[in-house]
């Protein structure tokens, strides 16, 4: 109210009341008060913490991270035994969290885009079915979905014992698909790839194929622009696949090892196995987040004005090219910001992993380690720090991408 003041008198004197009444100083006053308050609150909480810890006779230290964890983890991508440290157990959890988040984001995007496009389909039945899917998943808590899907996966899979021959002594109840694949209630079994001698050459052949295919596409485009002649697209695939196939046939360095149903009485041994907890959580998070992404995609496509479609059609573009070249690039700008926050949500929702027995960071560091050591304060702080870093990193990466596709304003 007193923001209008006489410039003359101000140069002459600075009165204390100006700290409150002069807009030029009032901001400083408020900030100063806010800062003092924050410092006061922090100090108060800190003092409470110190005195509470002293009363309980506890100390604040991260030394326990170096002690042996003592427990086993069912899915560890780095070598881990019960004698490894708590820190390593936490790392196993970190990797598992990132793994399920990465795969979840990919499948959620596929499901979401498909459902979002189909919901706009002119096919009445399909559009309604997608609407039911989206509403059912958006309006029910993710924890309930994780529990339900966990139960479905547990009940629908066969028991691995049904595939076992027990050292050849019994006839198995079911055969594995091609002797190589089996979906059980403990996981999905498939052959493992062995890297024999010379596998580097096969890998190089694969890279050469990719580079070659890429060059052929460029050559196609150049010829098209230069002479208007459209070269066939099928050589791309041959260039891509041929080198690696030839290298493998000549060297035979890659081999498959089939899952072994004989040697153990309880489980299929060997092969590559994707554990049931992972499958359940991955499925639940993908389908749940997919429903949200579908809504974003639908909104994005609807945000592109109909005139764009019509103009593109008037230029003589075919429907697929209209979608690829006109609609999607414009829709993407609307879709990507909410998509980023869906990825973040998925990563954060993966912290419910323990509901299906998946050993993510919340289950190892924030669960078993916390229980065993009783270091609640330390574990929870570390856990929050981890998620904070992940969230900020995902935001940063996606913001860079977002900036690269953003509308270039001139």
């Amino acid at each position: 109210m007193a923001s209008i003041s006489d410039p003359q008198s101000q140069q002459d004197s600075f009165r204390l009341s100006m700290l409150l009444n002069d807009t030029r100083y009032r901001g400083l006053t408020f900030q100063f008060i806010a800062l003092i308050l924050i410092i006061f609150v922090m100090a108060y909480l800190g003092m409470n913490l110190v005195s509470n810890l002293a009363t309980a006779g506890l100390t604040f230290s991260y030394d326990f991270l170096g002690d042996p964890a003592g427990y086993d983890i069912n899915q560890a991508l780095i070598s881990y035994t019960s004698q490894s440290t708590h820190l390593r157990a936490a790392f196993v959890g970190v990797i598992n969290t990132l793994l399920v988040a990465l795969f979840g984001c990919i499948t959620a995007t596929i499901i979401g885009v498909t459902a979002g496009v189909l919901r706009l389909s002119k096919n009445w039945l399909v559009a309604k079915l997608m609407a039911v899917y989206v509403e059912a998943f958006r309006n029910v808590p993710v924890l309930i979905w994780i529990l339900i899907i966990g139960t479905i996966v547990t009940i629908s899979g066969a028991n691995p014992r049904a595939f076992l021959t027990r050292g050849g002594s019994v006839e198995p109840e079911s055969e594995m698909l091609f002797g190589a694949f089996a979906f059980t209630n403990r996981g999905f079994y498939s052959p493992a790839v062995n890297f024999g001698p010379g596998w580097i050459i096969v890998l190089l052949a694969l890279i050469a194929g990719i580079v070659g295919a890429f060059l052929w596409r460029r050559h196609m485009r150049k010829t098209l622009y230069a002479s208007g002649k459209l070269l066939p697209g099928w050589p791309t695939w041959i260039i891509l696949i041929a080198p690696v196939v030839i290298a493998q046939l000549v060297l035979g360095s890659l081999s498959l090892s089939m899952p072994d149903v004989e040697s153990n009485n309880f489980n299929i041994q060997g092969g590559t196995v994707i554990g049931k907890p992972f499958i359940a959580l991955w499925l639940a998070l993908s389908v749940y987040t997919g429903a949200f992404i579908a809504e974003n995609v639908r909104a994005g496509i609807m945000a592109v004005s109909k005139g764009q479609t019509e103009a593109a059609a008037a230029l003589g573009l075919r429907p697929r090219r209209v979608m690829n070249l006109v609609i999607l690039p414009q829709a993407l700008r609307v879709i990507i910001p909410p998509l980023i926050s869906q990825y973040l949500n998925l990563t954060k929702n993966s912290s419910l992993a323990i509901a299906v027995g998946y050993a993510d960071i919340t289950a190892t560091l924030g669960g078993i380690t916390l229980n065993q050591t009783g270091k609640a304060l330390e574990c929870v702080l570390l856990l929050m720090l981890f998620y904070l870093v992940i969230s900020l990193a995902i935001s940063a990466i996606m913001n860079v991408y977002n900036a690269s596709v953003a509308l270039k304003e001139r």
Partner: protein
Amino acid sequence: MSDTHAESVAYVRETFVGEQPPPAQETGALIWLRKNLFSNWFYSILTLLALYVIYVLLSGFLPWLLGGVWEASSIRECREIAGEGAAGGCFAVLSERWNQLLFGFSYPSEAYWRPTLALVLLAVAAAPVLFPKVPRALLIVTLIYPFAAYYLIWGGTILIAVMALLGVIVGYIVYSRLVDRGFALGFFAGVAAAIIVWQIGGFITAAAPNVLALTEIQSRDMGGFMLNLILGVVCVSLSLPIGIVLALGRQSSLPIIKWICVVFIEFIRGVPLITLLFVANVVLAYFLPPGTNFDLILRVIIMITMFASAYIAEVIRGGLAALPRGQYEGAESLGLDYAQSMRLIILPQALKISIPGIVNVAVGLFKDTTLVSIISMFDLVGMIRGPILASQDWNGVYWELYGFAAFLFFIVCYGISQYSQWLERQLATDHR
């Protein structure tokens, strides 16, 4: 005009021809089917696929639902009644544990009418806020509601609620008297007045604890779906004002205040709710003054409110940013100071366009209240995963219980999101 036409064209129709019925082969159910479901081979495949999916879902679901057993005292009895290999579900668990699912296992059964009444009143109180056509006079109910709901749900003497309300009213009167002389003065004087009334009220309630007293019910006796509703409603209401303050702080030109708000918002949004609940559960106690002890439900309310306010702040920030620059400049050119321009010009508009976003946050938050089951609170999911599934009678009944929980949440959340969409349509027409 007709002259020019008369020179250039031979014939001009001067009256409309009535609408003709569409050609016979363009109407009817079969045509609708062909147009919408089988217009080309790709759509036909999609349609058949969709039909198959629907068949699979319904063939599993309908026998389960329709063949269900509703009267039994345990899962064993269910199995006996249904007979061998029956597909029907054991819904008897719902009828037997109905009250536990809704109210938790230790809320006194003779007091069930109280939260029920509070829920009905909530609908009345929320109506004038949610629907512009409802008479404004009902806003009185909205104002009184928090206090009435507290009195109904927790019980105790009515004086507590009355005194708390009185404090708010006195504070508001003082504020409105003084606000002309500056917002800060009015605000702090109002708060001071309210605190004085509450202080006096504290002595009065302590002296007369039995005036119109309902049986006091401890917070930890609350559970079931009621707990989800209480947590959702309380935390969303509390987080609204905090969210507004945070959003304004983040938009502020004062760097320190801005950075405090940014750090708070980004920190909260960067971590999952479950870690904040762990904080409420195992860490927060260490930060409270020695010798005090907040009950778990209060700690959880604190953390969920912080969580919700960060998200609501971001929604409102979006609303603030969406306002045209001219509104800010217009307010300034009228000579309004910051508090006045925000209060009278900016916030009413920004909040209005933020409502759909706020409703979405509220739905998400309400769904997230199920996470409290992980920290040993017996909300709807906690009741199912804890006492009900652990009991010998109902061990093994999963689908019915989870299905029921999903159904309850679906009803509430779908209703709210339909409202949100309706509101968006209302708001969209306003601009045309």
